[in-house]
């Protein structure tokens, strides 16, 4: 199996390049892309990539596999390999630190902007802040995000304006707290999203939806935010 790898070591390389590696895959097994990377690293330990839980929970090994972002650990080779070839590149649009490792600072900065925590200035009840099952249900499809950055780095609006457009991952989290019945900062949160860039650079092309390894729908969440802004403004 031919695997083409994006290689870049800023200490020795003047520019990134693609390296073709021939990997012998064990017969009769459908390996995950991460397993194949591990096989490559056994031969060449200079190959750099992030990984941790190897089961799609930690969100470390987001990368671009044959042109589509996803988590290497839960992407089977049978699903991604075309014409007997696999091309692995770092997540697009973010600065490359080395090989498949990208600098996620901008991504986290946008995440930070949406205040991804519960704000409630009322005195806490003795036991806990209760939610009705219906209110709790509103958070389904929002809280599951693992911040792997597959969606935001698949979004052209985020590529063009990563400093001003919050991006699908951040906006999904923004709505996760806007929709929380226990949060008391909705007005403040909306006021921070009202400019022409933060939310409105979304053109609804739904790349985020098509790549999300957890099957979430940031475009839908962005639509909900737009509706909240509309209600606030009219």
């Amino acid at each position, binding site marked *: 199996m031919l695997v083409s790898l994006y290689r870049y070591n800023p200490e020795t390389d003047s520019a990134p390049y693609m390296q073709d590696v021939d990997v012998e895959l064990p017969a009769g097994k459908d390996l995950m892309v991460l397993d194949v990377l591990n096989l490559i690293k056994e031969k060449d330990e200079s190959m750099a990539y992030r990984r941790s839980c190897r089961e799609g929970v930690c969100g470390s090994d987001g990368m671009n596999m044959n042109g589509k972002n996803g988590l290497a650990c839960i992407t089977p080779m049978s699903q991604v390999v075309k014409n007997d070839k696999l091309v692995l590149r770092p997540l697009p649009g973010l600065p490359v630190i080395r090989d498949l490792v990208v600098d996620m600072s901008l991504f986290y900065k946008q995440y930070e*902007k949406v205040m991804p925590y519960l704000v409630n200035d009322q005195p806490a009840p003795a036991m806990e802040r209760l939610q009705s099952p219906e209110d709790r249900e509103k958070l389904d499809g929002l809280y599951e995000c693992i911040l792997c950055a597959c969606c935001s780095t698949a979004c052209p*609006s985020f590529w*063009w*304006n990563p400093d*001003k457009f919050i991006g699908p991952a951040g906006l999904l989290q923004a709505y996760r707290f806007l929709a929380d019945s226990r949060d008391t900062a909705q007005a403040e949160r909306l*006021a*921070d*999203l*009202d*400019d*022409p*860039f*933060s*939310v*409105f*650079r979304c053109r609804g092309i739904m790349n985020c939806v098509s790549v999300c390894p957890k099957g979430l729908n940031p475009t839908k969440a962005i639509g909900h935010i*737009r509706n909240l*802004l*509309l209600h*606030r*403004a009219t």
Partner: protein
Amino acid sequence: MGMNSVTNIGRNGIQDWIIQRVSAYVLAFYTVFLLGFFITTDVDYQSWSALFNQVWFKIFTLLALLSIGAHAWVGLWTVSTDYIKSAMQRFLFQAAFMLVIFVYVVWGIQIIWGL
């Protein structure tokens, strides 16, 4: 945290967004109406000038003209902020298309109302 610009047509993102959507509906209605007119009417100078002599159609046309101006403003402003990274070049581009839109709207008003 949110940043607003002074060269977009609305005061904020939601206003630009509403202007873009509403103007799109107006333009869609206008286009469908004109298509219907072309299909159902034998178009010659008589019928064309009769259509434009009605006040309601002049208003409808003016609304469509203002809509296309606003729609183009929002759209081109967005494109310019996406692709033109130099502030000076961006401002010149925006000033140029705003001037063109302004000229077209004024000229259009003159034509519609026969001033």
